[in-house]
């Protein structure tokens, strides 16, 4: 007899740093779909696992410590639980920090009718001298507990079997023993619950909503204020004000509940025992030594990227893209000439060039994933926090900024790790001032053409100048542009652990795919537009629209010693930064080989310097602008970002040119 297959939805909840993504990745593998939560810039991951006749649809909720709307992540997690009613909720916990992690469970029991605890990292806990008796925990909590070591594949099949079993169990709602049942705060919570009507808080449970109101949850507060009548709100609001301290009491009760649960089931490590993490952290979090280590590690990463990634990129550019263009031209000789030009110059050189950057990004993402998975990234945020403070950010902002050296696109997307809206926006606005690999390529070629043996020094100088501009811009924006409270760093430093290759591979792969999808489509469109502008009217770039724009901009260019060809090259960098060189090649009537000579004849060193400055500070490429818009969800801020960089790049270039002209460089 054929059994009908059933399909269930399982939500994975859990705090950060518990290996939740590892569990999710191992359960769903490459079946996963990465998207955004509706209306939010928070990543949503879903995936499917087939287990016998059962189809399990996993939804990976954002990692959260609690379910109070302190951040978008927490709001998403709880709204999903309340509104989508998943069949089973699996909460992944870290056995080595059970006390902290069970706090979330104290909240989850109210919203998840069928809950399973996946007690992960039991090996780490054991190494730390913490023995957790999972059976005792199970009976204390009355929730199934599956001990596991996810990154060694232990306990996953047990988890799946438990999901299958639990999905057929009746829901547990109703027999929850509230944490406050023996406490004085109960009367306060009951009173608030009594003031709420069912309609005013649906779909949230009344008791839960009452607690959230007392905890000062702004989202629930807003919802209730809108739905209650004015008189009802007038009685509720002063009561909430009067019991403002309830937030602290409720949180304390939850931790007391946790202590009761943990007390009998966990053996604690001795004080004074020095773990591996502590020993490594003595160096890694030290204000001086920590920075030295950071610089050394980043040095290795860049060395890897440039010694392995760049040669592959060059190879692909020459042997793949150039070949393909030649092929297009020779194969399509019989049809109108604009077709091969469109395919070869418009699409292949635009999109193709960007795609050749994938090997560089691959090594960047790979190194990134390793550093993230080992737990080192949190230390980077720690040691850099004091510096970031100067420009109104905290340590977490450093991570996307460093990623920006590889490519600004994933860097802007990477700002999602920053909880505070203000700090995120500021980081998004500053990221384009980080010279990416594309800009570096242009700097290297131009500097080599003009400054010979001093090219390296000039290149480093330009990069440092760009970073200085980043700091100055940060200071200005923090002071004059952005409003709101600056938030401080508060972040868990996870224990170090050896990285899991499968996870690193998956994460790297997903990021590459995301980059290709986002950057690829935008760049395709912009490439076509720029091709149109540079091919019409007349068919040659010298007479095209873009040349006309360039000539029109020449008076501005003159101030920084640039002629119209260089202005056009600058504009073309909007497609992709490395396009600058190709455009110059075309405009100066030759291939890249003769470019050095042509440039030297055309420009004085002062102009070259000004060109380097304007090009490193100029508006970022189209793909970056697109993600800036996507992440800020605001045209205003996107326009501000473009405008700010236009003003900054032109004024700095003019300044540099004028000064350089007055000194020896101008001769």
């Amino acid at each position, binding site marked *: 007899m054929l059994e009908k297959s059933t399909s269930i939805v399982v939500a994975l909840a859990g705090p950060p740093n518990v290996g939740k993504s590892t569990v999710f990745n191992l359960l769903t593998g490459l079946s996963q779909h990465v998207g955004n939560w509706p209306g939010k810039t928070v990543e949503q991951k879903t995936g499917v696992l087939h287990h016998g006749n059962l189809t399990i649809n996993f939804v990976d909720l954002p990692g959260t*410590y*609690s379910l*109070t709307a*302190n*951040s978008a992540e927490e709001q998403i997690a709880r709204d999903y639980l309340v509104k989508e009613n998943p069949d089973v909720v699996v909460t992944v916990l870290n056995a*080595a*920090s*059970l*006390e*902290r992690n069970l*706090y979330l469970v104290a909240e989850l029991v109210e919203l998840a009718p069928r809950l399973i605890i996946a007690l992960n990292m039991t090996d780490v806990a054991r190494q730390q*001298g*913490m023995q957790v008796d999972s059976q005792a925990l199970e009976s204390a909590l009355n929730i199934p507990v599956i001990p596991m070591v996810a990154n060694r594949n232990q306990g996953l099949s047990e988890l799946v079997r438990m999901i299958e079993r639990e999905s057929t169990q009746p829901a547990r709602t109703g027999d929850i023993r509230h944490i406050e049942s023996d406490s004085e705060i109960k009367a306060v919570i009951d009173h608030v619950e009594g003031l709420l009507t069912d309609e005013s808080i649906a779909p949230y449970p009344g008791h839960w909503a009452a607690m959230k109101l007392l*905890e*000062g*949850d702004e989202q629930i507060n807003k919802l209730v204020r809108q739905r209650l009548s004015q008189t009802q709100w007038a009685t509720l609001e002063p009561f909430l004000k009067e019991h*403002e301290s309830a*937030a*602290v009491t409720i*949180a*304390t009760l*939850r*931790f007391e509940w946790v202590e009761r649960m943990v007390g009998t089931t966990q053996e604690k*490590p*001795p*004080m*004074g*025992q020095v773990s591996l*993490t*502590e020993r490594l*952290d003595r160096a890694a*979090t*030290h*204000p001086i030594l920590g920075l030295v280590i950071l610089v050394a590690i980043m040095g290795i990463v860049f060395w890897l990227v440039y010694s392995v990634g760049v040669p592959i990129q060059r190879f692909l550019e020459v042997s793949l893209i150039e070949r393909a263009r030649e092929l297009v031209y020779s194969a399509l000789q019989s049809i109108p000439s604009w077709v091969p030009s469109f395919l070869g110059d418009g699409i292949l050189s635009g999109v193709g060039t960007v795609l050749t950057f994938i090997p560089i990004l691959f090594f960047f993402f790979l190194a990134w994933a390793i550093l993230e998975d080992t737990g080192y990234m*949190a230390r980077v*945020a*720690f040691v850099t*926090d*004091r510096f970031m*403070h100067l420009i109104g950010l*905290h*340590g977490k902002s450093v991570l996307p900024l460093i990623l920006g050296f590889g490519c600004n696109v994933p860097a802007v997307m990477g700002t999602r790790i920053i*909880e505070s809206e203000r700090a995120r926006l500021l980081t998004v606005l500053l990221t384009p001032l980080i010279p990416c690999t594309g800009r570096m390529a242009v700097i290297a070629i131009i500097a080599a053409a003009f400054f010979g043996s001093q090219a390296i020094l000039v290149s480093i100088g330009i990069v440092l100048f760009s970073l200085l501009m980043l700091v100055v811009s940060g200071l200005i924006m923090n002071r004059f542009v952005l409003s709101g*409270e*600056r*938030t*401080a*760093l*508060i*972040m*868990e*430093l*996870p224990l170090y652990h050896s990285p899991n290759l499968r996870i690193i591979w998956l994460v790297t792969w997903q990021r590459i795919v995301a980059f290709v999808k986002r950057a690829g489509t935008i760049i395709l469109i912009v490439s076509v537009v720029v091709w149109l502008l540079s091919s019409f009217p007349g068919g040659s770039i010298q007479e095209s629209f873009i040349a006309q724009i360039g000539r029109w901009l020449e008076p501005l260019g003159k101030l920084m010693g640039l002629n119209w060809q260089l202005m056009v090259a600058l504009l073309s960098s909007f497609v992709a930064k490395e396009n600058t060189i190709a455009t110059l090649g075309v405009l100066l009537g030759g291939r890249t080989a003769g470019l050095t000579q042509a440039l030297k004849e055309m420009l004085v060193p002062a102009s070259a310097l000004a060109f380097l400055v304007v090009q490193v500070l100029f508006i970022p490429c189209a793909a970056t602008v697109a993600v800036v818009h996507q992440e800020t969800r605001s045209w205003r801020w996107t326009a501000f970002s473009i405008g700010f960089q236009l003003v900054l790049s032109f004024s700095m270039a003019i300044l540099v040119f004028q000064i350089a002209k007055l000194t020896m460089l101008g001769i």
Partner: protein
Amino acid sequence: MDSERIEEYLEAIYKRQRTETPVSTSALAKDLAVSLPAITDMLRRLESEGLIEYVANKGAVLTTQGNERAVSVVRRHRLWERFLTDILGVKWDRVHHEACRLEHATSPETERKLASLLGNIDTCPHGYPIPDKNGNIKEQEVAPLSEFEPGQSACIETVAEETPHSLRDIDKLGLKPKTVVTVEKKNSDGSIELQTTGERRWLKKEVAALLLVKPVSAESKAAAVEEIAIAKLATGESGIVRSYTGGRGMLGRCLSMGFTPGSLVKMLKNFGSGPVLVKVHDTEVALGRGIAEKIVVTKNKAVC
């Protein structure tokens, strides 16, 4: 005759001597769990080796030579106990017997290394002074907590009886040595209610009698607990969260990260500027200085 047994006897006599001299054979028989005739035999031997003076029917007194040797055993014993609790993480109610075995097998070099590993620790986990390497010992002036009256404050120095059971009880109550307590109430059954760093505790009479304490004046008691911001804790110091002085914006995040009142916060790294690293609820948490200035903790100061 092995030196191990000799050392056991000397150690037992040494400990008894603080309360009675000469030390009676019956008391030794009880401490060492050995029959009376065996004790008498052994005491004769010790006398012949010049380690004690023995008067039949009265008891034994350590000679200078015997005292030296006894102090040296005590030193090794208490160093090992510290090693077992602080480095190996053995619970304090289980270290005594282990240390009893280790003390006899300890060469002078091991003893030196052990002492330097432990640093400047001068008491055993149960609060008894560790004799220094020259055999000098700081004697304590203590009285049982049960003799204290309501309103008086005291600092716990040692635990009188090192039985595993009573040690476990005391550990659970959080009344380990170097804790300052204030007696709040004495009940008719002899039990005591007391306060320690803001928490109330209830002690049975027997437990209160086990805690040997030193009186603490009101001023130094007030100075014993101070309320400071987390940012002011030095590396290695701990405090208990009391309140939060910042805006409501960060309160929720602080609470869900575990900075709830009553939570123990240990400072792992404080470089005086920049962020700090603390341990709270089993995890390391980095706190920006701004927020570390806003969470207030009470810190116990060493006044005793």
